[in-house]
């Protein structure tokens, strides 16, 4: 009880002096604002990438790939396995009563960037009929879907923005033939997506196996039925993966680097902010030596003094974090970022702001600790004699 009373009295006293020490107080606030602002805006890239990649992920979708393949690129599914796969249990049927299974082969071709005209590789996905059953959220924004058997492609709007010759009506040269872009669409992804007819792409690129089979499940629970059926069938060397798992693997590469850099830079900036805060608080405490000595002389204990200085430090750091997060939001939220060939909008979310507040709490507590100890041990007689 006594502790709480003393603590409140001291804290009110500390905060009342804030305006008279504006310079030192601002150092803490601005230091924390810069550290948190940088951390939040860098993490906003990873969050934005994830939000755009995972936007349409459904627990109802699964992908089958070879048992020993680490990712779909290294997997192969022969065409004669197709009917076996269509007969697997747990697969939803479309309006016509056919199982929703889309076989996909992915080939890499070159495009020229719109900005600097350099070559960049992009994947072309050849899919068997049923794409719109499997991905009902695929929205054609211009033109139409490709027709089977023809050299036709549809490209996501991201491709059209990033590279040349992806608008409707554009011709692309691939494998000794001209391919017509007949449609543009919107679909959640951080990279450019191009679809064409599966069998046409298989023959044009001299391939005879698909990479993966994408299936729509009857329900998320049907995934278990599918995996048991795959294990029980020795003629199919396949494993099932949730759509989210496949997307997560793709994200891991870019996000791993982004997160490492974000936390590395953020931690260094936080260290600098902590040192700055400690220095300012030392100066504040030194300026109040006499006041603190009097307080101790009239019976205030060490513990409430320590607690009040640390609390003051934290209370100054928190608005700094809010300012940092706000500036990050104003400057970067929704900004188009394109690291590592991907392209997405950065997202400053409330949870990132909360993370920033957490870091500020740490900076405030660590930076305030040593000055607080000094404040609690002001030698009463020496400090009072200096009047």
């Amino acid at each position: 009880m006594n502790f709480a009373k003393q603590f409140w009295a001291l804290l009110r006293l500390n905060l009342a002096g804030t305006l008279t020490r504006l310079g030192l107080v601002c150092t803490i606030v601005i230091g924390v604002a810069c550290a948190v602002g940088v951390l939040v805006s860098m993490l906003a890239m990873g969050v934005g990438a994830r939000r755009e990649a995972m936007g349409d992920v459904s627990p109802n979708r699964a992908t089958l790939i070879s048992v020993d393949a680490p990712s779909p690129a290294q997997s192969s599914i022969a065409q004669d396995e197709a009917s076996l796969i269509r007969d697997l249990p747990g697969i939803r049927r479309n309006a016509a009563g056919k199982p929703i299974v889309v076989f996909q082969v992915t080939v890499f071709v070159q495009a020229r960037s719109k900005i600097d005209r350099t070559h960049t590789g992009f994947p072309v996905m050849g899919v068997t009929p049923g794409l719109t059953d499997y991905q009902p959220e695929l929205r054609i924004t211009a033109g139409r879907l490709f027709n089977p058997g023809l050299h036709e492609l549809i490209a996501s709007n991201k491709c059209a923005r990033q590279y040349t010759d992806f608008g409707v009506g554009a011709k692309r040269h691939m494998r000794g033939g001209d391919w017509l872009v007949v449609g543009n669409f919107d679909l959640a992804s951080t990279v450019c997506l191009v679809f064409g007819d599966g069998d046409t792409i298989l023959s044009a690129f001299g391939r005879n196996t698909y990479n993966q089979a994408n299936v729509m499940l009857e329900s998320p629970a049907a995934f278990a039925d599918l995996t048991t059926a795959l294990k029980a069938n020795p003629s199919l060397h396949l494993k099932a993966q949730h759509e989210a798992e496949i997307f997560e693997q793709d994200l891991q590469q870019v996000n791993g680097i982004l997160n490492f850099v974000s936390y590395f830079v953020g931690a260094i900036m936080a260290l600098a902010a902590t040192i700055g805060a400690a220095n300012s608080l030392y100066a504040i405490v030194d300026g109040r030596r006499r006041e603190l000595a009097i307080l101790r002389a009239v019976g205030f204990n060490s513990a409430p003094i320590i607690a009040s200085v640390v609390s003051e430090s934290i209370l100054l750091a928190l608005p700094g974090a809010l300012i940092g997060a706000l500036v990050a939001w104003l400057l970067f939220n929704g900004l188009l970022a394109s690291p590592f060939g991907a392209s997405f909008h950065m997202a400053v979310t409330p949870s990132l702001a909360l993370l920033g507040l957490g870091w500020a709490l740490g900076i405030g507590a660590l930076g305030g600790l040593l000055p607080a100890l000094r404040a609690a041990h002001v030698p009463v007689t020496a400090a009072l004699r200096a009047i």
Partner: protein
Amino acid sequence: MKYLPLIWSGIWRKPGRTALVLLQVAVAFALFGVLQGMKAGVDRSVANTRADVLFVASADFGGTPLPFSYFDRLRSVPGIKSVSFADGFVGTYQRPTEAVYVLAIQPTNLWLTLVPEIFQVLPKDLEALAKTRDGALITTDIGKKYGWRVGDRIPLTSNTLHVDGSGTWTFQIVGTFKDHEPGEAGLIVANYDYLDKARAFNQGSVRNFYAVIAEPTRAAEMSDTIDELFVNSPNETNTASFRENAQQQMRSIGDLNFLIRSVTSAVLVALLFSITTMMMQTIRERTPEFAVLKTLGFSNRAIFLMVVGESLLICVAAALIGLALAMGVFPYTAKFIPGLSMPLSVVAFGLIGALLVALIAAAPPASRAARLQVVDGLAGR
């Protein structure tokens, strides 16, 4: 110069505070050095790659390799000085985790001169390789790792099948070479002829051609010429100079330029503010001391210079410590980006930044100290 002792004692008046300021500035400049150094180092390493070597690969990434007949067709293209090629496969030694990459070339100097900074082979070793069909050259590192010696026969297992139907390839070690950028997997150099005749699939094919052109400035044009030569054939090519490829690889970091700039400016703003307040605080605490100095006859200008001198000394010393730290970190980044080192221009740039920060931060407190009235100062007002 005669003020130096005064400046020095001013700096160490409160050792704890000065140490913390030094630390803060050093940390900030270490970050600056790492970020800017990374960017400048990448730019420089791209500029150092050769623009006159064109790398010819199959347009179908991961698809069938190119036919050997392209060798002669490339050599007949006007403007191309020489053409070489390389192939290879991944094998494993004894355990599936011990990967060994077999680089297969023609046993002449032609291909090796393209990358002299990476591979170095002595003429006698190259001659030995040329004489032994199934010969191989190894690095001393891999020799130590697996206990291989010249004269040994080593069996490798691979997914690339041998004509005998197995995945076992045997090489006879005939010499050594130097590899300056060793990757995680070991590497051995073997004869292309042996590999091509002994493989079950893709005989008479080549993974990549390397064309050296006479005029490096025409690299983009020549790349297009080569690609057009094989357009509409079943094996279309995709050609780009070493430099263009390096640019592409490094662009991922270039895209982060905007972010690097934002971070750097945030660091500098925070620093500027922090140092200004700290100097202000010192001046306030030392008001009586400055008043005494003025009474003794120190001019306003001298006082101003002393305060600026303190700030300069602290900032530049701390920046040097920070940049040295950043330089110390750089050898570790070589793991991710080979050949990266910190350019001296970044150090110079950092020091200029430190000077500016010190001058701007010290100006308000210094002018305050200079304008001080002796009477007020001594009265403690």
